[in-house]
């Protein structure tokens, strides 16, 4: 009985406060300044370790800057002209684009379809969701180790299966197309479930009545997917397209470790003929194998530009995607 009274007395310092001062002094600091204090850890650390390095890259890219030499000479845009004439750079750009298209397009289409299947009353809903996300919990390194075994030339499960059907073995790492397909498979396996869940979340926000009306009008579930679901969740689709585009421009661990299986030790070239060296891996080779920091920084900035261009193109393409619910 006495406890609440005591608590109330403690939490009300008003009687001791002089009349005419409705707010204690702490309030000024509290309302005006403390919010900035609360968000400052994020912004300070992000500027120091995220944004500043990115901007400083532009500065370094104007120098002939090698970690192993003590002097850095200003060379202007020489790194850029050299880079644009470098056939290995363009090879890496082609590989990145090819792996990006091969992984992102099937991945997102497949995720959309899976989310569509999951977006209905189902038994074992949780089981399916957890299992679909399992690949995403697996680390990139683990994924490549596992799939390198599956895609192995001699004892790989996939080649053994092909052999059993009389189709002949494939040396997956040797060819451009086959190695790209293998790497794209790893990316698709790891990310489809994640994207499916994001689509599913968006689909659950679509009003049920739309589907009920469509069902009464005799629209098939596929028709409903195309005419109702996709137009309604278009913002989410744009979001996933952008995120997967940025992701595919940064693919590095897959080619690096897939390459490690080809020639132990030399991991940075992406295959003997650079057949699956991506841009990020090229950046790594220049920066952390040759220690050409200036040159690698130029590559990073050109990559950044490419990311912006490709994201922009994709954004425009997806925004133009026609939907029957559009006005």
């Amino acid at each position, binding site marked *: 009985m006495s406890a609440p009274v005591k608590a109330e007395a403690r939490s009300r310092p008003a009687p001791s406060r002089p009349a005419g001062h409705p707010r204690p002094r702490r309030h000024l600091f509290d309302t005006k300044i403390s919010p900035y204090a609360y968000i400052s850890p994020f912004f300070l650390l992000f500027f120091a370790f995220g944004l500043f390095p990115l901007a400083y890259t532009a500065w370094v890219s104007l120098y002939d800057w090698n970690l192993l030499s003590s002097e850095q000479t200003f060379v202007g845009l020489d790194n850029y002209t050299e880079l644009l004439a470098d056939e290995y750079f363009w090879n890496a750009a082609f590989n990145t684009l090819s792996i990006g298209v091969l992984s992102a397009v099937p991945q997102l289409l497949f995720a959309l379809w899976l989310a569509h299947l999951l977006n209905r009353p189902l038994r074992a809903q949780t089981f*399916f969701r957890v299992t679909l996300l399992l690949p995403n919990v697996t680390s990139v390194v683990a994924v490549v180790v596992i799939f390198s075994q599956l895609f192995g030339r001699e004892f790989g499960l996939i080649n053994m299966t092909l052999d059993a059907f009389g189709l002949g073995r494939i040396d997956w790492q040797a060819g451009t197309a086959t190695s790209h397909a293998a790497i794209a498979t790893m990316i698709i396996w790891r990310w489809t479930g994640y994207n499916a869940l994001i689509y599913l*979340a968006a689909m659950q926000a679509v009003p049920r009545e739309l589907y009920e009306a469509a069902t009464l009008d005799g629209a098939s579930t596929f028709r409903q997917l195309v005419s109702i679901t996709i137009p309604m969740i278009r913002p989410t689709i744009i979001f996933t397209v952008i995120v997967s585009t940025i992701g595919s421009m940064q693919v590095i661990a897959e080619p690096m470790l897939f390459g490690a299986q080809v020639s132990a030790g030399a991991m940075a070239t992406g295959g003997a003929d650079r057949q699956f060296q991506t841009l990020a891996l090229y950046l790594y080779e220049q920066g952390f194998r040759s220690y050409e920091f200036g040159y690698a920084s130029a590559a990073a900035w050109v990559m950044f530009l490419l990311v912006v261009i490709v994201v922009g193109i994709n954004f425009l393409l997806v925004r133009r995607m026609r939907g029957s619910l559009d006005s």
Partner: protein
Amino acid sequence: MTNRHFTASVRRAWRSIAARPLTYLTLTAVAFFSAFPIYWSVVVASHDNSALAQVPPPLLPGGNFFANVARVFDTAPFQLALLNSVLVAGSITISVMLFSTLAGFAFAKLRFRGRNALLVLVIATMMVPTQLGIIPLYMMMIKLEWTGTMYAVIVPSLVSAFGVFFMTQYLSRALPTELIEAGWVDGASTWGLFWRVVLPIARPAAAVLGMLTFMTAWNDYFWPLVVLTPENPTVQVALSQLAAGYVQDFTLGLAGTAVATLPLVLVFALLGRHIIGGIMQGAVKG
């Protein structure tokens, strides 16, 4: 009219029954392909290399699992790597949870000049490919003499734009503004309210964010590879050393994979529904 209605509902009922077996079959097949590579890694890790050359290959786990795991610990500094990864992922997780909740509270419930612009900045930074700043970041680590130490892996990841966004979203819905105002009236400081009122309410979302952050930090590979040495690695770096050996020893590599992955997979199998809830929650406004 009634007739049309009737046939439509019959057709709908028929379709919902007919669609089901096929839906379940498809989803089961997809679940199988999702889980199989992980299962396969355990199968390979529990045999010796000669068993893998058999046609057909073994499809059930064998008895060599612990022998192979022991070889993993002999070949690479896995004990140290596990310790390092727990330290790295643990401190990043605690820091991201704390700073995200703090900033999320400010963005969701406090009024200050420039709040909207700063929040837009947070969302924009989620899109910035910071990986491209890796060379100056490495130069910074040399200056700070952090290369080869866990500081280099921990400090740049102490905050996360996604985390701030996620907690802002959650707290603007879950934290009643009246509760904060009542606290002020009672003479509590905002800082005191953060600890006594905001944190308890933020706990479920912070836990989800913590699990996601721990997974990301545990699985991070590229930056630790660049900045650490083979003698003092994280789990993923040590695992890549195993995989890049001069001899293709798949049982060794996949036993390492199992050691590095299975703890996380088990935790995920237990807490997965909460993590999925978090991912789906974070996605809605995305």
